[in-house]
């Protein structure tokens, strides 16, 4: 049985095992030897073309429980049986589609809301992901999104986008709102400010506001 360690794009170390003479004890031994290198890292075990049985899995989980210096994130596998077993035990598996997303800011589980009406004063729409509005957001209406907000119409109400994220944007065909919040960063505008083709974006510490010009050609 051979082992290979490699970094992954989710800032974790992946242990690739092969299926000849698969042995849990050997894995444990290997990890114990490399403990110093692996200390404090996110750790993933990739098991390909080998079906784990329950005792093997239990023994591995037990091992990681006793090794708190390694942050075990779960398994990666190409076999359905392994995945089902892991899920039964509550262990993340199939890293490529599950654990990865948790590490990324945006997950595929986020809903995307599509609204085909004008939001009037007192209306409130929220979504864990993006919101697309085919209509206006009138004064007194509120929009809250975990993702981006795109308004195919006029924005005069309050929009909070990118809640809990570090990246997000708000776009509207016309903008005349008192304030706007993206990723917890607040933008305020005075009453006379009007923008066409408005786009506000926050990415980390960068904040950009772009617009064409105001409807009556003033602020331009």
């Amino acid at each position, binding site marked *: 049985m051979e082992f290979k360690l490699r970094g992954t794009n989710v800032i974790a170390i992946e242990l690739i095992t092969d299926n000849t003479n698969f042995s849990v004890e050997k894995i444990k031994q290997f990890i114990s030897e490399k403990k110093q290198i692996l200390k404090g890292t996110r750790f993933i075990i990739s098991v390909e073309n080998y079906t784990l049985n329950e005792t093997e899995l239990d023994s591995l989980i037990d091992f990681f429980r006793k090794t708190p210096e390694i942050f075990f994130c779960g398994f990666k596998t190409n076999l359905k049986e392994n995945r089902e077993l892991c899920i039964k035990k509550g262990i993340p598996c199939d890293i490529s589609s599950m654990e990865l997303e948790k590490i990324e800011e945006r997950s595929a589980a986020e809903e995307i809301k599509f609204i085909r009406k004008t939001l*009037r*004063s007192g209306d409130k729409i929220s979504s864990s992901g993006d919101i697309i509005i085919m209509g*206006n957001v009138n004064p007194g209406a509120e929009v809250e999104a975990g993702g981006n907000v795109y308004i195919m119409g006029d924005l005069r109400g309050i929009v909070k986008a990118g809640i809990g994220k570090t990246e997000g944007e708000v776009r509207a065909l016309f903008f005349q709102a008192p304030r706007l919040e993206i990723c917890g960063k607040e933008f305020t505008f005075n009453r006379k400010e009007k923008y066409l083709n408005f786009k506000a974006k926050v990415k980390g510490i960068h904040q950009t506001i772009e617009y064409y010009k105001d409807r009556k050609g003033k602020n331009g």
Partner: protein
Amino acid sequence: MADKVICVTSGKGGVGKSTVTGNLATALAAKGYKVVAIDADIGLRNLDLILGLENRIVYDIVHVIEGVCPVEKALVKDKRTKNLYLLPAAQTKDKSAVKPEDLVAIVESLRNNFDFIFIDSPAGIEEGFKTAVTPADTVIVIANPEMASIRDADRVTGLCSAMGKPEPKLIVNRLDPKKVEKGDMLDAEDVVQILGLELLGIVPEDKEMVSYINRGEPAVLSETSIAGKALRNIAERLLGKEVPFLELKAEGEGILNKIKKLFGGT
């Protein structure tokens, strides 16, 4: 014929709900239609003053609901304008005295005997408003050209669609062309832009309005009143006729051409 039961509302108070209701009802009655105006602003009775019928009230809507008298007996007939009737609100009770189903029952009992039934809604978005809107076939929202009124009108529009009513129609009330010219007041176009509703008419600010109300004479009966003329045009539009929008001028320059084009007026 257009919709029969019309509720006039606005959300915000003081924008001219009762005045518009009284005048539209009078204008239609003067044209020969049988019209009843129901004052649903229980506890804050005003419509009788606008119509000049305050001294003729014996029974009110709460008496009808309590079964003290039949609805026909509570209706106050206008002597000046034939075919115009008023169902007054109770001044001594509050909004809880009339439930939505009570008003629906009253409206249904009147429906076959009248061409138009106007309901004057109270300000606010609480039970009184809901009661007034529930029986309506169509809703007219009154907005003044200022942000507070627009926001409230917008809220009311949202509530109406939540109640399953068709999209309300808009009357922009108390527009002062002079102030619009100076940029001190929103244009009717701006109001329409924000609310996105069908514009039924624009009523210009008219200083004479106060004296018409004080005299208890609806302005639509006066040939000289500009607001009266605008309201008569709105009444025509309620009948489904196409009437061009009034040329509201501030020192010679027409400002409503854009809106007229927008709504297919000539």
